[in-house]
């Protein structure tokens, strides 16, 4: 059930009425409704793996309690490591089995083995990368005494299965989510209205821009050899923009829907296309993943390597991005993606400016230096994202070498002018609204204008939108 489908619209309306009218007496009944509808939502999409996520809920609930119950440090450590192994083991089994299996067969073939290749493929359970990371964070937080284990199985199950975030995040922290559902929620008009605005902005980004860009890009990536170099160059950037519209669109819809139930999810994007350095980019792109990696990987690693100075920092960054890379999927292209990110960090680490925060929050027009930095960032990020798109290092190299040719200065083809104009307006709005939670945070605008904006957006969404594209890209990770 995609957020931009008719089924979901009906589902959301039903949940809304159940939640606020049937469940209004207590937080407990509201949680029961959220859990029940989330299980329905998950089962509707992926009935086979419903038992897996429920197993994950039960096992992590029990592990969380038992870490705290252990008196000695060493026993706590034992329970923690058991928990990590179970979570990572399940994730690796489903996500990486095929990769290792294929790699081993390839390796054997190198040594002349004719071991028969069987098409043993394991399907990826919906949302597993996201809920596994949440579980791991939960256990580590308990072990580090950052939080107390959740002693309410209903609340904990709601936390892990909550339907607005189950498909593709954000990766929520227990300490942020659980307090919000520990008591009865009251309907808050302002929050609900803001949720609708945020959902509308996400829907616009998804069905008009992401799906429109995807339709324009598919023929290009399907047949790279036949394209003009200029088309390929523009196409590489548009793929990055497509990823942003798709994933930020999904996230805004998730956050917007959640606000209708009085629950705030974490911000996942802060206009990453306006980044001026690689560390800036990772502070703004898929924030719930990058802060997760920061807290549970980078920080412990830098702590371990802290006496090695810059080399230690670089090592910690490399390992962190290696994990972020393979988190996206099991393929060498994703490893290369992680390695490339780490390489991008080298100049920052040597210059000691990893921590530098770029401040251009209050300028209307960026200075030439800022603009150039942004452009440079777009180039190197677009390059890295080609790895995600082509899913192979050689495919990316082929693509780049096809760009370097004589007709680079010809006119790019195949990009509908209307779509490009709407995208430009989208980016302009994102720029002007970059200090707000989402671009359609316009409660301060006078009433009639506000509704004119809604109507224009609704006309674009339902009039020009494409509703066929099967899924959000990030669902596959």
């Amino acid at each position, binding site marked *: 059930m995609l957020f931009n489908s008719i089924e979901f619209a009906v589902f959301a309306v039903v949940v809304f009425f159940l939640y606020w009218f049937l469940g209004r007496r207590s937080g407990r009944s509201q949680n029961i409704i959220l859990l029940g509808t989330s299980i329905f939502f998950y089962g509707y999409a992926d009935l086979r793996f419903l038992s897996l996520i429920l197993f994950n809920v039960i096992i992590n609930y029990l592990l969380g309690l038992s870490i705290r119950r252990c008196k000695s440090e060493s026993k706590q450590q034992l329970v923690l490591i058991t928990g990590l192994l179970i979570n990572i083991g399940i994730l690796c089994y489903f996500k990486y089995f095929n990769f290792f299996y294929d790699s081993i067969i390839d390796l054997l073939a190198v040594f002349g083995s004719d071991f028969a290749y069987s098409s043993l493929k394991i399907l990826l359970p919906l949302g597993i990368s996201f809920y596994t990371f949440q579980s791991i964070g939960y256990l580590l937080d308990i072990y*580090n005494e950052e939080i107390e284990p959740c002693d309410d199985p209903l609340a904990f199950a709601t936390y892990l299965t909550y339907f607005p975030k189950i498909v593709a995040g954000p990766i929520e922290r227990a300490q942020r989510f659980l307090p919000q559902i520990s008591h009865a929620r009251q309907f808050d008009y302002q929050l609900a209205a803001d949720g609708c605005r945020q959902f509308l902005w996400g829907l616009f980004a998804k069905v008009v821009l992401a799906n429109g860009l995807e339709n324009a890009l598919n023929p290009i990536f399907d047949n790279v050899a036949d394209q003009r170099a200029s088309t390929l160059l523009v196409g590489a950037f548009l793929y990055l923009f497509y990823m942003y519209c798709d994933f930020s669109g999904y996230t805004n819809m998730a956050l917007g829907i959640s606000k209708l139930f009085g629950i705030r999810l974490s911000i996942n994007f802060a206009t990453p296309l306006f980044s001026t350095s690689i560390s800036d980019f990772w502070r703004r792109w898929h924030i719930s993943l990058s802060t997760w990696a*920061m807290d549970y990987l980078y*920080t412990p690693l830098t*702590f371990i390597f802290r*006496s090695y100075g810059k080399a230690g920092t670089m090592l910690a960054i490399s390992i962190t991005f290696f994990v972020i890379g393979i988190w996206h999927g099991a393929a060498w292209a994703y490893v290369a993606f992680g390695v490339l990110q780490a390489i991008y960090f080298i100049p920052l680490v040597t210059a000691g400016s990893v*921590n530098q925060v770029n401040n251009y929050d209050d300028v209307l027009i960026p200075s030439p230096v800022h603009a150039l930095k942004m452009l440079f960032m777009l180039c190197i990020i677009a390059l890295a994202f080609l790895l995600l798109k082509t899913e192979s290092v050689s495919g990316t190299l082929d693509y780049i070498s096809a760009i370097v040719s004589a007709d680079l200065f010809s006119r790019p083809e195949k990009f509908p002018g209307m779509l490009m104009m709407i995208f430009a307006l989208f980016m302009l709005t994102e720029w002007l609204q970059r200090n707000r939670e989402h671009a359609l945070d316009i409660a301060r605008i006078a009433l009639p204008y506000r509704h004119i904006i809604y109507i224009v957006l609704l006309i674009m969404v339902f009039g020009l939108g494409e509703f066929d594209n099967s899924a959000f890209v990030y669902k596959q990770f």
Partner: protein
Amino acid sequence: MNRDELSEAVKAIIIDTVKHDDFVMSEELTATDVSGWDSLSHMSIITGIEQKFSVKFKLKELNKLKNMSSLLDLILSKMQ
């Protein structure tokens, strides 16, 4: 070394790391009050403290720090 001297020394380390002194040192100071003191620079500050006062922290101890007051308490407890 008394608490005030310690506080001054820690302040120097923070200034050295974040490259500015645009903050007011107090017992309630937290990382968010200091521009540039994020998770990336955090470890440089910690390493600076460890070297300066010849102490070793555990990760778990660092995770529990709430503000400057608890950081100073931790350093003092280690130095004794």
